[in-house]
């Protein structure tokens, strides 16, 4: 650990590998998960869900449930409709977007398997679950809508018949030269179709909500397993009509989110409505299998991508046409999620033309929304896969192709063709470091040697040189994107009379380590011990203002707010110190928590002494407000652009189709690092989720629209044996857009790793004629891809995906689109 020149005794906290303050209660089980909360008189809610993907509700008969033991109340969608507005979507991405009504409990029609139709309230969770079977519902089945392309065809069955279309929106972004002109002058055009399969986020803590009403005063306290207590409060006030000042939302210990708890859920609204009606506390906790149906999914896109280039490997242009599966309803940011990728397809590369279109499509499936990376993993996958495909077409090393096109270190700041200004980066440095750690040349030599000797287990090498946009977000940019809210973050720093410190943050951690990192930041600025700082978060009464945690924003925006608020505290304290020391403010030094008069080191006051002076207020400068507390709100000027180089080596058994990751090396540049241990942990977890998409995970629906990967036994969340040991390293190119020099890290690993793994698999099999393997690259799919390349099997997939649903990737591209133009 290094200490600054003016700071020889007090070790700087920022950059230090501090073990977390958060851990003690978590490793001992002294936790406050929402489902742990139990209060006198509390009732339990269970939700009856549609067993069909699409059906008209002819009748819901709830009174028989009331006959069951322990049941207190039961409500149909119609019973609840009067007290609850439609669930909100805050990102109407175009002026003419189709925004269907979304009742928290269905009234006339169910539109996905799992759509709620009634709730039962009972004295315990077993009684509530038992009584669901007594609710009698008559359905008339309607046609499911599952294939994104068929859904857009004339005469297709409609998810929302009153809207007259399944097309939710069309959102274009065209920049630079004309795509058709660029395509016409290109030597090479490569086209591919990729499928971003649906994923289930799988935060380890299922969702839960507890509502405690005080009926007499109309006040409500809601505990929820959420990433966004502040946003939930605003929107629940709107949905339920409960005045915002009467509603307190608390996110207690929250067991992971990954975007799935960046949501405002119908069950939260219904729990409030039931508590209001009954005047009793109510708890709802989802089972895992219920959550697979009812907690939003991620990804779910068909990507048609074309790159145009010269014969010597200069990128000329990129065209992207997306079909994005909205699912049955628009939830909080459903329509905007794929568009978070729109700006990232050009990635780290320079080009002359970029043409992007996204078409949102309604289907009769669980709604999609943000899942770790949200739009950016899809974009990064597409461009990094295409760079490998273009390199193969040109007969060029994929790394060399990237080098010829990426933004050089001396070109920063650089405005990408999509219009983002990347403040800083050093793709050369990260790549050189990664190559050395990986032993790239040796791997390539071994690869060729194994091909020569006909080893049935092929070695493949995958590259991903990614960047991403995070640290959401400048409020004016959000306005331009038609997002309803801002992207600022707040902090309040207060020094208590005893010299201890409370930092109040508007971020809402659920595993990220904000308590530790915010303590490190505040301790450095104030010159106080790390142990003396406590961080308050996740309660709208204790931390009244915030935009919460998602989009790798917390450190970049919220951490900056802590830094700036702490600076304000020092400046206020300086005024008191100058008064007490009878010196000018400019004549004071401040170091290690001590104000001293320049040239008279004995004339000094500690910041803790000043805190007590502010508390007693006996001798403050005239006219000074008696406090050194300070607030700061940061609205960032720009996004944050971490980047890095990921290299993956796989052994692919061509006889069984089995893939084993042999080596995974990544060098990430997330700017300056507050806590290297926490950063490394974020990278590890991100890698695991990105590799999960590449190899293991998929939400599978049958031809009737039933989720067949409907339990944790059917959906493969990777275990310890499914993942390799990672080699993680860093380069540090400070961000120039915030005083800490930090960039986001929460999503980087997920964004980078999926294409690295799939590129490695395709690289292993390319000598066999394989040009793609659809995700997840299961042994069966790898084996089939090899057989297809050999002409032993038709291209049409025969695995679990039924006919008539979205086509898989790996289908042979149209010959006219391929090869030398």
């Amino acid at each position: 650990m290094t200490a600054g020149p003016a700071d020889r005794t007090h070790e700087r906290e920022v950059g230090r590998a501090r073990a977390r303050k958060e851990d003690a209660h978590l490793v001992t089980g002294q936790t406050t998960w929402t489902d742990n909360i139990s209060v006198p008189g509390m009732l339990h809610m269970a939700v009856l869900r549609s067993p069909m993907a699409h059906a008209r509700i002819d009748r819901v008969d709830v009174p028989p449930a009331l006959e069951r033991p322990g049941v207190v109340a039961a409500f149909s969608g119609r019973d609840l409709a009067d007290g609850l507005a439609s669930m909100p979507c805050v990102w109407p991405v175009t002026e003419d977007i189709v925004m269907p009504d979304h009742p928290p409990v269905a009234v006339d029609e169910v539109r996905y398997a799992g759509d709620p139709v009634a709730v039962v309230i009972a004295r315990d969770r077993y009684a509530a679950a038992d009584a669901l079977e007594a609710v009698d519902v008559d359905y008339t089945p309607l046609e499911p809508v599952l294939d994104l392309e068929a859904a857009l065809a004339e005469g297709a069955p409609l998810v929302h018949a009153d809207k007259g279309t399944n097309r939710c929106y069309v959102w274009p972004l065209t920049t630079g030269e004309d795509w058709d002109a660029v395509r016409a002058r290109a030597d090479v055009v490569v086209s591919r179709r990729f499928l971003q399969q649906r994923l289930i986020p799988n935060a380890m803590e299922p969702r839960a909500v507890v509502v405690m009403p005080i009926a007499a005063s109309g006040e409500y306290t809601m505990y929820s397993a959420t990433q966004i207590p502040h946003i939930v409060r605003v929107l629940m006030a709107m949905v339920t009509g409960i005045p915002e000042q009467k509603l307190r939302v608390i996110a207690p210990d929250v067991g992971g989110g990954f975007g799935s708890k960046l949501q405002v859920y119908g069950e939260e609204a219904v729990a409030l409505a039931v508590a209001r009606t009954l005047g009793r506390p109510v708890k709802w906790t989802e089972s895992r299998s219920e959550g697979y149906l009812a907690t939003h999914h991620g990804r779910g896109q068909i990507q048609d991508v074309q790159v145009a280039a010269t014969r010597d490997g200069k990128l000329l242009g990129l065209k992207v046409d997306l079909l994005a599966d909205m699912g049955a309803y628009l939830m909080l940011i459903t329509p905007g999620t794929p568009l978070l990728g729109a700006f990232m397809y050009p990635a780290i590369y320079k080009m002359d033309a970029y043409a992007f279109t996204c078409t949102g499509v309604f289907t009769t499936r669980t709604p999609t929304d943000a899942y770790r990376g949200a739009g950016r993993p899809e974009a990064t996958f597409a461009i990094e896969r295409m760079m490998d495909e273009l390199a193969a077409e040109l007969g060029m090393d994929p790394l060399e192709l990237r080098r010829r096109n990426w933004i050089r270190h001396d070109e920063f700041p650089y405005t990408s063709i999509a219009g983002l200004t990347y403040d800083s980066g050093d793709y050369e440095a990260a790549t050189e470091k990664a190559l050395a750690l990986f032993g790239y040349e040796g791997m390539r030599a071994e690869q060729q040697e194994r091909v020569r000797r006909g080893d049935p287990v092929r070695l493949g090498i995958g590259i991903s040189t990614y960047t991403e946009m995070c640290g959401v977000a400048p409020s004016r940019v959000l306005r331009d994107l038609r997002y309803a809210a801002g992207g600022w973050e707040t902090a309040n720093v207060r020094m208590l009379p005893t010299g201890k410190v409370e930092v109040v943050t508007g971020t809402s951690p659920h595993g990220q380590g904000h308590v530790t990192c915010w303590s490190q930041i505040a301790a450095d600025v104030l010159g106080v011990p790390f142990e003396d700082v406590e961080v308050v978060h996740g309660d709208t009464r204790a931390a009244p203002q915030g935009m919460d945690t998602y989009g790798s924003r917390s450190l970049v925006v919220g951490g900056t707010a802590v830094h700036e608020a702490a600076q304000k505290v020092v400046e206020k304290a300086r005024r008191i110190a100058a008064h007490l020391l009878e010196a000018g403010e400019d004549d004071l030094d401040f170091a290690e928590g001590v104000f001293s008069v320049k040239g008279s080191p004995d004339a000094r006051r500690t910041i803790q002494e000043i805190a007590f002076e502010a508390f007693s207020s006996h001798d403050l400068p005239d006219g000074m407000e008696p406090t050194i507390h300070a607030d700061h709100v940061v609205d960032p000027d720009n996004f944050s652009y971490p980047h890095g180089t990921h290299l993956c080596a796989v052994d692919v058994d061509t006889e069984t189709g089995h893939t084993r990751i042999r080596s995974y090396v990544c060098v990430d540049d997330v700017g300056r690092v507050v806590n290297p241990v926490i950063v490394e942990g974020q990278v590890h977890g991100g890698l695991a989720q990105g590799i999960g998409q590449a190899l293991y995970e998929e939400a599978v629906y049958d031809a009737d629209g039933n989720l067949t990967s409907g339990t944790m036994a059917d959906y493969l969340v990777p275990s310890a044996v499914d993942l390799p040991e990672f080699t993680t390293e860093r380069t540090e190119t400070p961000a120039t857009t915030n005083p800490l020099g930090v960039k986001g890290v929460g999503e980087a690993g997920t964004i980078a790793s999926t294409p690295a793994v799939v590129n490695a698999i395709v690289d292993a099999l390319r000598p066999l004629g394989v040009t793609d393997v659809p995700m997840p690259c299961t042994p069966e799919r790898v084996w089939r891809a090899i057989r297809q390349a050999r002409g032993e099997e038709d291209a049409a997939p025969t695995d679990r995906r039924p006919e008539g649903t979205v086509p898989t990737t790996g289908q042979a591209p149209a010959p006219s689109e391929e090869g030398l133009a």
Partner: protein
Amino acid sequence: MNRISVTVDGVAYQDDVEPRLLLVHYLRDRLGLTGTPIGCDTGSCGACTVELDGRSVKSCSVLAVQADGGEVTTVQGLGAPTGGLDSLQRAFHEKHALQCGYCTPGMIMAARDLLRENPDPTPDEVRHGLEGNLCRCTGYQNIVQAVLAAAREGQEART
């Protein structure tokens, strides 16, 4: 209703329970021992792992009546009552083997069982030993390191 006698974290209880009551719901809802969380409904995730008569079990897959006459240890029974950590708890903290912490109680209880059977495991043996416990945050790397660190500490204590 069935009457059961069970000792949990050193305290003896007698309770009337429905035959279908899961051990994890007995621990959480009847005894208030909420340190053991529930992560799934198919015995897949291992978040609810506790020790029953010296072996690790997923308490969502055991009925409370099956624990009759037995001795249960949960994560809340480890370490000192005043908050001192046992070697695995400490290793998880020091190696940053947890982020959200939801899987941690089960992970620690499964690791205890693993180290009892194999006090000196290889990294690969740790990964296989914890295969029934899912974590979505850490990518497992630091969990493996924590278990290996606790194993080393156990070795040193014995020598």
